[in-house]
């Protein structure tokens, strides 16, 4: 459930534009200092506006740490700083660890803030107001609405397996077995839900016309434009700084 704060009241299309622009900038960054600046800014924004399920950020953090460790252990570019038994820890390994793990965590955090501050119905209404066709505008909204539903269904299937003695071990064999016994029930549950939803939507005239009246139409306010311009401009400035005055690991230390 999105929170009631300033970003929650912003036009979802503005937020989407900001998210997409900043994601592109983050993906293009090559300097660890700028990646960290983006990450810290994203974490602060998530802390202030995010709310919702912290488990998503926790899970992503664990994965980011794994990426960082893998880079430190197996990327041997740059100068060697230390030696752990037979593995050399290098400046390049640490730098790439920060860059890749930082980019991953920044993208996840920004996306989570977007989802936490945007109602699925508002997103579809805003996309329709922006001129997208009904079907295209409803797709992301339905995806946002159904992700938690399918997560819940998956958890129930896993529980049904556990109560009938199926060990959910993390070996390759265990994973293959788990996938085998999870796919079919999930497929049935998903198809049944999709069938009901499609019948309900078409049964209420969805897709009958290219346009539809919106109970709550969204328009771009001057606040939306100002925020989008400032945030995207800051992102672009940081991107150019990253290209012209890159800050490396040594600068950070």
């Amino acid at each position, binding site marked *: 459930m999105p929170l009631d704060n300033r970003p929650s009241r912003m036009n979802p299309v503005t937020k989407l534009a900001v998210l997409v622009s900043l994601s592109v900038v983050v993906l293009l960054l090559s300097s660890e200092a700028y990646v960290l600046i983006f990450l810290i800014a994203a974490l602060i924004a998530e802390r202030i506006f995010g709310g919702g399920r912290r488990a998503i950020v926790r899970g992503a953090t664990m994965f980011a740490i794994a990426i960082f460790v893998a880079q430190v252990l197996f990327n041997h570019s740059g100068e060697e700083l230390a030696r752990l038994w037979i593995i050399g820890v290098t400046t390049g390994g640490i730098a790439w660890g920060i860059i890749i793990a930082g980019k991953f965590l920044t993208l996840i955090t920004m996306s989570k803030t977007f989802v936490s501050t945007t109602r699925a119905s508002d997103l579809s209404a805003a996309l329709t107001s922006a001129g997208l066709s009904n079907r295209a505008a409803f797709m992301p909204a339905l995806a946002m609405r159904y992700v938690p539903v399918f997560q819940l269904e998956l958890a129930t299937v896993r529980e049904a*397996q556990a109560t009938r*003695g*199926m060990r959910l071990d993390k070996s390759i064999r265990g994973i293959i077995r788990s996938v085998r016994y999870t796919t079919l029930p999930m497929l049935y549950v998903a198809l049944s839900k999709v069938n009901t939803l499609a019948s309900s939507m078409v049964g209420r005239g969805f897709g009958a016309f290219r346009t539809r009246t919106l109970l709550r139409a969204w328009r771009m306010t001057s606040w939306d434009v100002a925020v989008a311009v400032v945030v995207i401009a800051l992102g672009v400035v940081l991107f150019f700084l990253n290209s012209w005055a890159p800050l490396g690991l040594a600068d950070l230390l």
Partner: protein
Amino acid sequence: MLEVRDLRVRYVNRSKPAVDGLTFSVAAGEFVLLFGDSASGKSTAMQAVCGMIPHIIPADVSGTVKVDGREFHDPAETAKVVGMVQQDPEAQFCTETVEEEVAFGPENFNVPQPEIRRRIDSALASVGAAHLKDRDLSTLSGGEKQKVAIASMLVLNPKLLILDEPTSSLDPRSVSEVVSAIDQMRRTTGITVIVVEHRLSGFVGMATRVLEMESARLVRDTRAGEPAFAAVRKAAHSVPDYPRIERRQGAAISAEGLAFSIGGKTILDGLCFTIAEGSALALMGENGAGKTTLLRILCGLATPTSGNLTMFGHRIDAARRMDPWILGKDVGLVFQNPNHQIFGETVQQEIGFASENYGNDMASAQSATEDFVKAEGVSRNIHPHCLSFGQKRRVNIASASAHGPKLLMLDEPFAGQDVHNALKIAQQLEKIHRAGRTIIVVTHDLDFARAFCTDALLLRKGRVAAFGNADQVLSENKDLFSKEVP
């Protein structure tokens, strides 16, 4: 109003038709109750009437369906005159709030905004749900969700409204709410209504006509006032002949101050009870009372936040999380939705799934498979998903009990089941009980609880409201189970 002539529907890759030569007509303002066993073709016929078949669900269709004298070939056009509310209200919601959901239909037909607002108020008021307008759909009870689903169809001003098993998974209080809402809607709008139901008791009082389908054909058509209608009305209130079981002695499960909360919300609050070994317990209460959470704790899927539970030599408390794998040897659980728990590719594999996982001797699983195959007249190699809904439920029960757990728990096994299937499930449970097992059934079916169960545990807002002999508990709490239209 509705004219159906020689309607035949055959699903793709099926040899037998699901609806075979259906002919009937319904006059404006009638309230028709369409009943029949599972797979008799009721829902299929109604899906064909509102155009979902063949436009969304592929099937070969012949015959004619006319609404208000017109044949429709486009589901969007049909939507203007026929609305259909499906079984699971939640699965048909595509927005987040009540207002948005009810507005969805008129928005699609480009109805002007002020008119949409007027229609939302009127549709919600006609089902007694005006107070829900600003609520989030996720915060509604089962009965409230069903009312919103009905309002979201009424808002299009259809001439015919079809309700497919509108009360199948609701607790008695919600059933009562929905039945009253439908009655109120019928009186205020005068709309033609067809209700598809397995169990007639809730709606037979307001029906002006009853249709019965059997094996894809219409076998009964009777109107209020006719002698046959009185017979249907009497039969609607009769109790199926459920088997009775004997009570035994000895504690199997004992709970002391059992509590569970999540995200600061208390779900179970200080439960104390002792369930005797070999008893059959009806676990009852409104939707959201904590019944499913209690089942989850009993099979190790959730850990109590305080208090403790002793069962079959295991002690479970906040400090001791039990592995569901270990508890699963002694406790079998049948989930609400049959499709969540079908893992095998044949009936034989499905029934032997738990025994194989636990490395048990397969003899008891083979014997359970033999019993199932013989009772249902199906091959042991048939895919469980090819079975009927009732058979799927019974294969679930066989597969959750074949590895010999001492306790078998079932979460609403009668939801969506007709009387014959409910009776078959009760007979299957009686056989399992005879083998010395303790049984816990989460159910809203009062007739079953009273006839079959030895004990009843009634939960209310996470607390024990009543516990003891089933007959006594149900008699003393009659007001909580009223299904009649107030």
